[in-house]
């Protein structure tokens, strides 16, 4: 019951955020965005034809009314039809979202897990050569652009100039082995790019926790290293770790898959969004922005509940 009340309060508290996000993006993308009227018309349109298309696109209505329509679309989760393909936005999303999740999830999980493990190793050997080597690699990783990594990995693993082990583009997945064939290189690229940042962040969190009094107490009572890292360090660093992971979810799902999917020709939400950006397909962009904002509020809520689960000092008030 307490959780439900809390959830309700949080969701209501998230409304200003959703309003802000949708308003700013609506203003920029839809109101100031490109006029699609003439693209949808044949040559030499008549005045009536122009009128009817403008009415269909909603251009004839006043600004506020169009924004309210957008809000209604978010609440009802119905964003109309894509300008370019005419397909319902909902069915596009329903088709592409599972693909995006399948592409991004392994890399996201492994990138965070590996980062955490490397960070623990580095922090445990703090200032030693192992620490310096790991931190050196992570700075190198942070200094290479995502695009460079993607191009290089595709060259190395998917082209006749390199190993040519994996398909370079596309997504023909009907079995687990297909899945592994198509997902491996994108996953490696995602891990490579995220690892440097993750390792650094987690190491800083862990080193800070290691300096705390209660860790010294645990050591003074003979706690062995593995237990020390788990019980005293990791358990107590969960709040920043959870924060980082949770808050990267909404952005990674959109921005991360955007580049991967475009470059590897994978028909996920990222690719759809990219096409929508380049073609000014507003219904899709409106849906993506609106859903991301909703996802953010839900993330905030779940994060807060998780805080309560991992730290007895946090209350849901």
């Amino acid at each position, binding site marked *: 019951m307490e959780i439900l009340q809390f959830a309700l309060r949080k969701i209501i508290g998230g409304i*200003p*955020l959703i309003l*802000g*996000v949708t308003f*700013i*993006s609506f*203003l*920029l*993308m839809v109101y*100031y*965005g*490109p006029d699609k009227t003439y693209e949808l018309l044949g040559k030499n349109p008549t005045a009536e034809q122009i009128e009817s298309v403008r009415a269909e696109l909603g251009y004839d209505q006043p600004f506020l009314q169009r924004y309210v329509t957008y809000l209604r679309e978010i609440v009802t989760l119905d964003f109309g039809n894509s300008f370019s393909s005419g397909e319902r936005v909902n069915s596009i999303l329903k088709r592409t979202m599972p693909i995006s999740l399948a592409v991004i999830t392994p890399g996201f999980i492994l990138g965070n897990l590996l980062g955490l493990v490397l960070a623990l190793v580095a922090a445990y050997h703090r200032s030693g050569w192992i620490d310096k080597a790991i931190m050196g690699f992570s*700075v*190198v990783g*942070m*200094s*290479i*652009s*995502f*695009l*460079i990594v993607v*191009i*290089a990995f*595709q*060259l190395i693993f998917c*082209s006749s*100039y390199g190993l040519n082990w994996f398909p*370079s583009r596309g997504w023909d997945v009907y079995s687990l082995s297909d899945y592994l064939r198509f997902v491996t290189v994108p996953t490696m690229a995602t891990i490579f790019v995220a690892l440097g940042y993750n390792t650094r962040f987690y*190491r*800083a969190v862990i*080193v*800070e926790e290691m*300096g705390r009094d209660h860790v010294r107490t645990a050591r003074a009572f003979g706690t062995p290293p593995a237990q020390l890292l788990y019980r005293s360090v990791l358990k107590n660093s969960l709040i920043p770790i959870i924060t980082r992971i949770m808050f990267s979810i*909404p*952005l990674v799902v*959109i*921005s991360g898959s*955007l*580049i991967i999917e*475009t*470059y590897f020709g994978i028909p996920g939400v990222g690719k759809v*969004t*990219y096409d929508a*950006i*380049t073609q*000014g397909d507003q219904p899709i*962009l409106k849906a*993506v*922005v609106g859903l*991301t*904002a909703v996802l*953010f509020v839900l993330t905030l809520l779940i994060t807060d509940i998780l805080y309560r689960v991992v730290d007895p000092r946090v209350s849901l008030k």
Partner: protein
Amino acid sequence: MSSASVAAENTTIAVRGRDSLWSKAFYKFRHDRMGMVAFALVMAYGVMALGTVFGWWANDWSEIRGGRFDPISADFWFGSNVNGQDIFARTVFSTRTAFEVGLVVAILSTLIGAVLGAVAGYYSGSWIDELVLWLKGVLDSIPFYLFVAAVAFAMQGSAYGMHVAMVATFWTTTGRLVRGEVIKLKQFEFVEAARAIGLPELKIVFRHIIPNTFHILLVQATIVFVAAIKSEVILSFLGLGVKNGVSWGRMLAEATYEVGAGHFNNFIWASLFMFGLVMAFNMFSDALQDALDPRKV
């Protein structure tokens, strides 16, 4: 002691504390070998960029001088691209673009972050703070590339759409850090004293509080600089990046069509030069943090 002289005294203490922070940091930085090497490398890139401003080199980056994908030769040190333009000149000129993008975005976003963060922190808990936090939350929740696209649409293809979008989103981290620091600083005596002698609040914020956050601002500016250069690459790939000119991002975007056919010069040189600058800047930024932040681990 009158309150004015107390204030003066405390301000000088605060200022002196700051001086010693900076002189200690300078000392520490001077003895950080990696940091100094990185700094020298950044400076070298800076000279490379300045050279194009003064017209010493690489101003023929857009000239069509050779054939399609000429190999590396005495004439074309890094080969030529699909249009027969000199990749060496383009690579070098892109350094200038990188500095332009990096500096503009770093300086503006740091300024905005400092002002909004300081005001929010000084009036923490009030509606001003709420407003800034809300704005930050909103900007953080819009997917970055979509936001840039939206700004690009809204600015009707202006060359600065990318800059505006980056500034609008990159100030938030700086703002958050400054806000936290200001909430801490607010409790110090020199602020109390300044308030006690009736200095106007805005003057307190700008003259006494923001200067005490310079160490955060400097480090944040270097981080944003790197982020801006890296984002430019992705945005150029998406067709939202640098409009009139050449950049490593545009070269890499070109390269995406070329590497499949075995033309690697655009890819290799843009990658190497970009990696060098970003790596040097990252290390420089690290050394700065080491020197300036006593708590940094």
